């Protein structure tokens, strides 16, 4: 059936609530400022009203409470809200949840899920536009899921809520909420931790995740149409676990790579992909690995200024051409 990203997310929440009485919600504004998205969640929140805890504006306390509820045997989903709000809860998300299993010597498990809506969303300016995945990726003990499609939004969130034994950051993106696709809910899902080849190609690999996936697909279409370049597009899907194998396998075939990343350039998720290729695909590379990422400046408010920083299909395609045209001096 044809379903959009918000509807798929809401369906995962609904099915998890139906499947397991230990699942409950702390906070409930999962679709952020999207009215269509909120409408998708409304029936679920109504059906399970008694399992939706009212949430004061208290990210630190709520995040810790979600972890504590998981320690008591529940499987809570906490709505952090904008990814930027995770900073309010950082002490709990970064320094309590990921350490508990390890530092208890395996005695305790923390099946908690944090829902974050990240990204440069239009008029979010500097404080509401953060992409937090690279920072979280530097913290051992957190699973980082970044679905780019409705099917993955459904599959990954349902997995986190009903199967995972570990703290999970489920990272949605404001610019994906209304994307639609055909989803076969009976089809077996790609396992968590596997990257997906979204488009096969022989000339170069575009390494993407989250909102960069549809933009990389658009870039690949542009490259094929206007330049005869056949790009392979990989959706990394999860940063932890990280499927380095699929990435290396693709670049071993194409010999060239562009990393498209909405994180800031320095120390972003793309840096890890590039380092993986430098170490593992050195012998296959015909050109240096390039990155297209958000420049290292805070996100400005004015639409004209924001647009100047956004990683677009055109910028990805231009970088891909630069890689294609590389000649050793």
């Amino acid at each position, binding site marked *: 059936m044809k379903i959009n990203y918000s509807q798929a997310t809401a369906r995962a929440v609904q099915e998890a609530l139906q499947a397991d009485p230990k699942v409950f919600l702390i906070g409930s504004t999962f679709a952020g400022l999207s009215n269509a998205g909120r409408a998708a969640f409304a029936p679920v929140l109504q059906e399970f009203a008694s399992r939706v805890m009212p949430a004061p504006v208290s990210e*630190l306390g709520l995040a810790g409470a979600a972890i504590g509820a998981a320690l008591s045997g529940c499987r809570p989903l906490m709505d952090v809200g904008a990814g930027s709000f995770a900073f309010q809860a950082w002490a709990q998300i970064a320094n309590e949840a990921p350490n508990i299993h390890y530092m208890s010597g395996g005695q305790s498990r923390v099946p908690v899920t944090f829902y974050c809506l990240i990204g440069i969303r239009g008029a979010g300016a500097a404080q509401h536009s953060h992409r937090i995945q690279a920072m979280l990726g530097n913290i051992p003990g957190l699973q980082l899921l970044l679905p780019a499609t409705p099917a993955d939004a459904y599959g990954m969130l349902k997995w986190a809520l009903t199967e995972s034994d570990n703290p999970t950051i489920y990272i949605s993106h404001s610019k994906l909420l209304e994307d639609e696709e055909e989803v076969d809910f009976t089809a077996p899902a790609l396992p968590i931790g596997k990257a997906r080849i979204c488009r096969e190609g022989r000339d170069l690999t575009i390494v993407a995740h989250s909102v960069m996936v549809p933009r990389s697909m658009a870039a690949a279409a542009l490259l094929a149409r206007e330049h005869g370049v056949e790009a392979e597009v990989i959706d990394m899907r999860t940063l932890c676990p990280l499927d380095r194998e699929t990435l290396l396998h693709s670049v071993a075939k194409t010999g060239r790579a562009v990393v498209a990343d909405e994180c800031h350039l320095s120390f972003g998720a793309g840096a890890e992909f590039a380092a993986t290729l430098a170490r593992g695909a050195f012998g296959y590379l015909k050109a240096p690995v390039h990155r297209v990422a958000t420049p290292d400046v805070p996100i400005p408010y004015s639409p004209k200024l924001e647009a100047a920083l956004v990683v677009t299909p055109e910028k990805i395609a231009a970088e891909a051409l630069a890689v294609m045209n590389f000649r050793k001096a």
Partner: protein
Amino acid sequence: MGNAANPTQRLESMLRIRRFEEQVIRLAKAGAFPGHYHVYIGQEATAVTVCENLIPEDMIFSTWRNHGHLLARGASPERMLAEILGRATGYARGKSGTLHLAVTDLGAPATSAMVGGALPLATGAALGLKHQGSSGIVVAFFGDAALDEGAFYEAINLAAVWKVPILYLCENNSIPPEKRKRGQFPSSTLSAAQLVDIAHAFQIQSEVVDGADTDALSECFRRLVGEVRTTSSPRFVEVRCTRWPGNVPVWPELAGGEWNLNWAFGTKPELPELATWVEASDPLSRYLRRLLDSGQLSRQVAATTDTRVREEIAKAARFAESSPWPDPAEAMHGTFAGARQP
């Protein structure tokens, strides 16, 4: 639970903590383990009397000063000391050390060494117990410095809004007696004149109790744990402890020597500040003296109890020191539960 009525058992629990902590200090001074550590000497009656009222379904959350809380809950001195020494036989196989000691089977699943860090966790655990229809409650132990942290305010607000079964137990040991100006309490760092006022402002019933008065603590916790359990709502209690002189320096010291049973029989410690503390502020000396004075216990039973506890702790130390180090490869295991590894 049942042992509230048994003074010998209560005395033994308090002695176990005292002798354990003295052993920890001796091991630290001997270089048996690296890093900073915190001991519970002078606060034993608090952990012991509150845990007397707990049932297996209950959970506790502690801090870097966790040894007394866990021992009172029934943790093994052997495995605790082994963990403090970083050995493979410790509760966390050497991954937690003293700061994060946790015993999940005893309802102590996570010990945060971040000031105030466990308060949101404890509040959420109480929410989780309530959600599951458990008869269990949560006791959150923390020091007065946790009230300097924003996490405290968010946590107690959530507990009051959600109406969850949790006892916030603040052990206020902020000011060593010789540094305290007349009437100066409750804290060296908060502008609040009374800590209970803070909880009151959140509509949480609150009270103050003397941490050196074991009978007062026992009465207070029996009542408060019962209220938390029956009403499924939070309570706040400030236990006023007077810091043991050995806890005044940056690194704990057995100032004036280890605790001596004779101090309860009338002999005074030589160190003047220790003599003052033992006389007025030490829950263990005061409780034992009261048991002797009221004829509930003989000196002989006190002495044999102490001997038994000393032997138990000495044996635990031998166990810990003779335990193997973890295999270095263990460092790479256990980041994630289950088969999944990064």
